[in-house]
C-alpha cells in the first residue's frame, strides 16, 4: 500500500477524479486537510454535500441556482427583451463577469453534435422557443466559435427566423493584447468582416 491510511488513499482517489487534479495535487490537498483544522475539513465536506441538496437548474434559463427561478430571471432591473443563449453555466459566469450585459440568459446545456449523436432533444432548445413572445426584441447567440457551436447557432437562427425576432451572433475577432500576425485565418477573416466604424 502506497499510503499508510486507507481513508487517506480513498480521499486521494476521490480528488483525482475531479477535473484538473492529478495524483500529486490530490495528495497535496488531502495532506493539507489532514494537517489543517477539523473545522476546515467539515466546512469543505458540508459545502460539497450542500451542492446536491441545494443547487439545481433554474426552470426558466437552466443556470445553476439555489432558488427557482434564479436571481437573474427574477431581477426586475434586467432587460427582459434580450436573451443571451449560451452552452454551459460556466459561459454565463464568464459573460456576467464582464458586467456589460444586462439582459436575461438561456443555457442550452451543450451544443448540437452530429458526430456524437447529440440532437435538439438533448438540449434546452424547445424551452428557449417557449420563451419567445412579442416582448422579446433580440436573441444573442453566444455559443463557442467551434464547428459544433456554429452549427448550433445556424440551427437556432433558422428556428427563430419565422418568429420575427432579431437574432444576433457574438462577434469574433482579435483578442485584446493580441497581435494580428499570430491570428489564424478564420479569426482574422471574421474580424475583417465584422469591422466597426471608429467613433471620432
Amino acid at each position, binding site marked *: 500500500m502506497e499510503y499508510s491510511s486507507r481513508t487517506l488513499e480513498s480521499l486521494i482517489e476521490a480528488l483525482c477524479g475531479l*477535473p*484538473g487534479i492529478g495524483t500529486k495535487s490530490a495528495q497535496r490537498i488531502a495532506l493539507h486537510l489532514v494537517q489543517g483544522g477539523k473545522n476546515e475539513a467539515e466546512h469543505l465536506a458540508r459545502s460539497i454535500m450542500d451542492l446536491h441538496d441545494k443547487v439545481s437548474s433554474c426552470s426558466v434559463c437552466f443556470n445553476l441556482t439555489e432558488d427557482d427561478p434564479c436571481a437573474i430571471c427574477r431581477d426586475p432591473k434586467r432587460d427582459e427583451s434580450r436573451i443571451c443563449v449560451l452552452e454551459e453555466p460556466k459561459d454565463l459566469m464568464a459573460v456576467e463577469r464582464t458586467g456589460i450585459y444586462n439582459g436575461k440568459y438561456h443555457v442550452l446545456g451543450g451544443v*448540437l453534435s*452530429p*458526430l*456524437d*449523436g447529440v*440532437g*435538439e432533444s438533448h438540449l434546452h432548445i424547445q424551452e428557449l422557443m417557449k420563451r419567445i413572445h412579442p416582448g422579446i426584441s433580440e436573441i444573442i*447567440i453566444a455559443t463557442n466559435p*467551434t*464547428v459544433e457551436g*456554429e*452549427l448550433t*447557432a*445556424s*440551427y437556432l*437562427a*433558422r*428556428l427563430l*427566423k*419565422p418568429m420575427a425576432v*432579431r*437574432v*444576433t*451572433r457574438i462577434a469574433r475577432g482579435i*483578442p485584446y493584447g*493580441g497581435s494580428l500576425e*499570430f*491570428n*489564424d*485565418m*478564420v*479569426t482574422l*477573416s471574421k474580424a475583417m468582416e465584422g469591422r466597426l466604424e471608429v467613433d471620432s
Partner: protein
Amino acid sequence: MVILKTEAVVLKAWNLGETSRILSVYSRDHGKVKLVAKGGRTLKSKFRGCLEPLSRITIEYYDKRTRDLQLLGRSDLLDPHMKLIGDMRGTVLGLAALELIYRAVAGEERSVEIYDLLSETLSALNGAGGGFAEGIFWRFETRFISLMGYQPTWDNCLSCGSSLGKEGGFFQASSGGLLCASCGVSRGGLVVAGGTLDILYWLQGAPVFEAAKLEPTDGEKAEIRKMFDLYFKVHIEHIQGLESLKFLYGMESTNRQGIFPASSNTEIH
C-alpha cells in the same frame, strides 16, 4: 522518437483537462493519427484555429511507436473550409465524411488516395453553394468503398452477368452487387430503380464539382441512402449507421419551418 511532418484533416477533437485538446486526424503520409495539443485551448496557444474538425492543417509531431497518443509540436492552418460556417447541410455532410473515415479506417494505414479524396470532398462541399451537396457526399462514399476494397458491381447482374438496364435490379449488400429483375425475383434484395443505378454508375467517374449538379428524385435519393447504409453495415465492422447522417435525416423529417432547405446558408444579423 522521430519528428514527423505532414498534411492532415482533423476528423474529431475532444477536450483534455482544462486547456488541452486531443485530435484524431487523417494524415496524407501516416494515415489515422491521434495527437495531443497541449494547451491548445488557451488564447495564446500556437495551435489556435487548427484544432477543429473539417480543417486541413499541417502537423509536426513527435512520433513514439510505443504510445497511442502522439505529441503535437506545431501546426498551421491550410484550409478551414470557411464557407461551411453557417451552411448546416454542408457542415453535416462534411462531418459524415469525417465520421466514415474515423470509424472505417482502423489504424495508421497510409493511403494518399483516401486523403486526397477526403480533401477534395471537403473543398467541394465548401464551394457547393446552393448545389446538391449530398451528391458530393455520395461520390465520396462510392469512391471510399472502392478504395477500401469493397467496390460493388453496379452495372451487371451478379448471377447471370446480364447488363442492368432501365428496369433496375435487386441490391444485395452481402453479395456485393445487384441481381437483374429475373434473377432477383426469387432471391430478393432491395429493389432499385434504373435511374438510381445510372446515378451511382455516373458518380464513379464524375468530377467532384459535377456531383453537386445532380437532381435526383425523392425515390432515387431514398434508394441511394438505403443502399449505402446497408452496404456499410454488412461490409465494414463497427458501422451501424453514421450518427451524422441520422442527424441530417432527423432534421429533414422534422423539417419544421423550413429549417433544412436544400441550400441552407443562414444569415445572422
